[in-house]
């Protein structure tokens, strides 16, 4: 009751969504690439992986160690967005975009299905307000073959 009484307008809804990644087939000893598709809600932007100021929180996609080792994560080219609260453009992502990851598949990996766990950390704002940094889980289904 107390919470409702003092609750400001709620912005708890997800402003960033990640499309469930399609299953990939990974051959032992090879390198495979996959893309994660993200969508930011209308009017929102998130800091890019290379934000304009040190105090801004960058977007980061990381993967847990395992038979598939993350070798390179490639972010899209950021936009330089202009906002009413900043006198200089900010390096951001908005709308629909992909983040690509190259994995090295261990030669000793056991064949069969598995899931690679990842985490996406981001911080989003619109033209008037910012949402706290969030970390979302990403699950990449993989079928390891010889």
């Amino acid at each position, binding site marked *: 009751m107390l919470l409702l*009484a003092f609750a*400001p307008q709620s912005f708890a809804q997800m402003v960033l969504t990640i499309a469930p990644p399609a299953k990939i087939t990974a051959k032992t000893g090879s390198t495979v690439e996959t893309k994660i598709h993200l969508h930011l809600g209308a009017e929102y932007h998130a800091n890019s992986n290379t934000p304009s100021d040190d105090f801004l929180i960058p977007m980061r996609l990381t993967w847990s160690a395992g038979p598939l080792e993350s070798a390179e994560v490639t972010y899209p080219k950021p936009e330089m967005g202009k906002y*009413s609260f900043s*006198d*200089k453009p900010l390096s951001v992502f908005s709308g629909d975009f992909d983040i690509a990851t190259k994995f090295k598949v261990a030669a000793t990996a056991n064949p069969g299905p598995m899931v690679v766990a990842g985490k996406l950390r981001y*911080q989003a704002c619109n033209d008037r*307000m*910012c*949402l706290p940094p969030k970390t979302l889980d990403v699950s990449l289904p993989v079928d390891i073959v010889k």
Partner: protein
Amino acid sequence: MFLQSRRVFSAAVVVLLLGGCTTSRPSKATVKDEKDRKLAPDFTLKDSTGASVKLSQLRGQVVLLNFWATWCPPCKIEIPWFISFQKAYQDRDFAVLGVSLDEDGWKSVTPFVAAEKINYKVVLGSEEMSQIYGGVDALPTTFIIDREGRIAATHVGLVAKKEYENEILNLLDRPPTSASLDPRRATVQDAGR
């Protein structure tokens, strides 16, 4: 040179659009009617020196309670306004209290407070504390609290400097009541007992 001029011009536009003219006397404020105001949930948090700051100890003053973080660019626009309010109205029983929601705490907040020359009290918030204020999930979020410790206005997101100032002056212009001078009395009344 051109870019520099353009930046200066852009900054001026931002300040004019958001800050507005603050020299004239406000004509209208957006504070709630007294009957619609709820008591601001009390809390005790530490400032950078480790001293405890309890909201209810500010009873009798008009308080601007601002939730912010160093990673929030719109919050950075407002902070110089709050510095000027603290300077202009502290002698009229007004106080700004900043509640930082930075996850890494004083590591980020201390250098920021020093760089911005913040002249009001800043404390570190917590999940529990933000929950009692309805789960502050967008920054900046600012509550204007009257002398009786009740929330007179709530702002989520960046608003104009003049809007804040109108509300502060509206509340400061009202004389203190007996409830504003006795926290226990105000608490009992607002709890409906």
